[in-house]
């Protein structure tokens, strides 16, 4: 395998890891606040559709992004309503949201565009264009580092850079701000937050809304940057892979980056090579497909370090009697 091929695979890794990373960080905010969210998939899908639709109609990818965020946030608030206000089962709510998105996107797409549940292809400003970083062209001829900078680091859309910037930002918010302290506390012991005079409901809604925003960006990225338009079920299980990455990352931002990059790499390799020949042993492509899930099961089972979820996760907060 030559250097350029490796760069290409890594480049593809970054593109494929971006939606996973955004969704994973989205889940991180929600679950750190004690709200389990298996509806990441649905929120991304809804955002993907609406961003593509609005981008197509308005011709602006940025307006599409805003629409995508709004769509995802609407589902987030529904999840909040079910799991915070009405203290329902968070897992069931997540399942419902995934179905709602899977159905509504096709239904509306068909009603608006009549192309069998997809949006028309996006072109021009309706898509996020790659950004060439300064000096990328001039430095390209520098051996080793030049191509690295030009092919791998430069040439992504704004949303990719935004996603990667979200990692330190999330870390900073979580561990260096008052909001982060309270957010982590409410996922561990909401009664401690409540008796300290801080609103549990308010904090959890805030977390759920942030989750909606990040899922919205992830969905918009899928439809308006990675691909050119919305197609039915285009998230293709990415929400669940993000969930897996979140567990893999033990609910920590920097680990989330590594986990999503790893899963992105698996996707990139599976995309490029069908069956991999490792010195006679052939690894079928299905193994690559299933690997994120298998790894997550292994992690969850505690065979490779125990993943301990936020203690109050999944439980609606009821003042004890």
């Amino acid at each position, binding site marked *: 395998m030559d250097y350029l091929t490796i760069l290409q695979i890594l480049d593809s890794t970054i593109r494929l890891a971006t939606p996973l990373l955004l969704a994973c960080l989205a889940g991180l905010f929600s679950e750190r606040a004690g709200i389990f969210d298996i509806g990441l998939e649905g929120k991304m899908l809804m955002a993907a559709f609406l961003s593509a639709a609005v981008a197509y109609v308005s011709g602006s990818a940025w307006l599409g992004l805003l629409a995508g965020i709004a769509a995802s946030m609407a589902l987030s608030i529904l999840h909040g309503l079910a*799991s915070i206000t009405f203290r329902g089962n968070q897992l069931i709510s997540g399942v*419902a949201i995934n*179905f*709602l998105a*899977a159905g509504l996107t096709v239904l509306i797409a068909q*009603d608006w565009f009549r192309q069998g549940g997809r949006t028309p292809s996006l072109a021009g400003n309706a898509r996020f264009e790659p950004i060439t970083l300064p000096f990328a062209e001039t430095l390209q001829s520098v051996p080793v580092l030049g191509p690295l900078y030009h092919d791998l680091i430069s040439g992504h859309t704004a949303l990719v850079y935004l996603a990667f910037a979200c990692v330190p930002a999330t870390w900073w918010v979580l561990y260096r701000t008052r909001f982060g302290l309270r957010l982590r506390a409410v996922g561990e012991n909401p009664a401690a937050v409540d008796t300290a005079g801080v609103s549990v409901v308010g904090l959890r809604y805030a977390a759920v809304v942030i989750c909606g925003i990040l899922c919205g960006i992830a969905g918009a990225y899928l439809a308006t940057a990675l691909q050119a338009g919305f197609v039915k079920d285009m998230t293709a299980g990415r929400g669940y892979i993000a969930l897996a990455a979140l567990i893999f990352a033990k609910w920590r931002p920097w680990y989330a980056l590594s986990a999503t990059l790893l899963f992105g790499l698996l996707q990139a390799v599976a995309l490029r090579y069908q069956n991999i020949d490792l010195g006679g042993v052939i690894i079928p492509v299905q193994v690559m497909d299933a690997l994120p899930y298998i790894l997550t099961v292994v992690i969850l089972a505690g065979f490779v370090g125990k993943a301990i979820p936020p203690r109050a996760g999944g439980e609606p907060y009821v003042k004890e009697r």
Partner: protein
Amino acid sequence: MDKMPKWADVILIPLISLLLAAIISALVILAIGEDPIAAVKLMVNGALGSTYGWGYTLYYATNFMFTGLAVAVAFHASLFNIGGEGQAMLGGLGVALICLFVPWPHWSLALLGATAAAAVFGAAWAAIPAYLQARRGSHIVITTIMFNFIAAAVLNYVLVNVLRPTGQMDPATGKFPTATHLPTLHDILSPLGIAFSKAAPANVSLIVAVLACVAVWLLIWRTRFGYELRAYGFSESGARYAGISPFRITMLAMMISGGLAGMMAINNVMGEAERLVMNAVEGAGFIGIAVALMGRNHPFGVFLAAILFGFLYQGGAELALWTSIPRELITVIQALVILFTGALDNMVRMPLEKLFLALRRKEG
């Protein structure tokens, strides 16, 4: 005292939830510029207006009875089995293997063998998450989700690389031998002088599904195991006190659940397609969640809810055929049912409880 009478909990709340789901679905239909009343008429006609329609409705309902029972059994042990999809896929693999590689003399024996194989494969696929939960403490919801994807990969591999006949393009097995073909409702009813559509896929599996409903009812409410299962579901510490092994309950509950989900394959794989294709389950595993929630985890409720969803599926297909409303409308309705009967249960329940409390105060 209970906050409200039992009938309100068992009948009124699901009905109100269903009504809410129906109202919102109607609004959705209105929003995409169609007439909800005409749509309902079309659905009723298409799904219940002919034996052909009934044949499809009951075919889908058979699938949903199995997957709904699967979710319900696990729910009674306070386990959320979201892996019905994967377990049904594996059940399909079991059915395919036993139909393709065992020379069956008669369909009845083949049905017995296939039912057993489907149940064993589904149970085995559910046993791994169950073991990981009982012994290693991994969250069963997450593991069963992961196992759905792993099942898809396994099936994909087996169909593409192992079971696909040479020269065939699509990832599927060859046709099952004729001896394994199950009698349809037409075959069963015509000797009795009842005319039933020949083209509809409903088959003898429906009877197996109904028997499964009865068996699950007996299991949950009439056997020692059911007694222990529900006790464990209500209180793990209570189970420990009574000498009920959490490990045993978790394993058995999940294996029964997975077995039931797997058994769906006798309907869709053996009864309808008569070969195993990639996307045979078509989301029925997930619909089981809606069916179980709607049916309040009671086999009779599951039976009714399965028929309701069978109607929705067949009606939805008719809608898609005759109007511009895509089949995905059903997915939306299904989502709304899960939302209202499951996640937003308290939204309906809290005002009702207040109402009943107020009524009782007035009386008292």
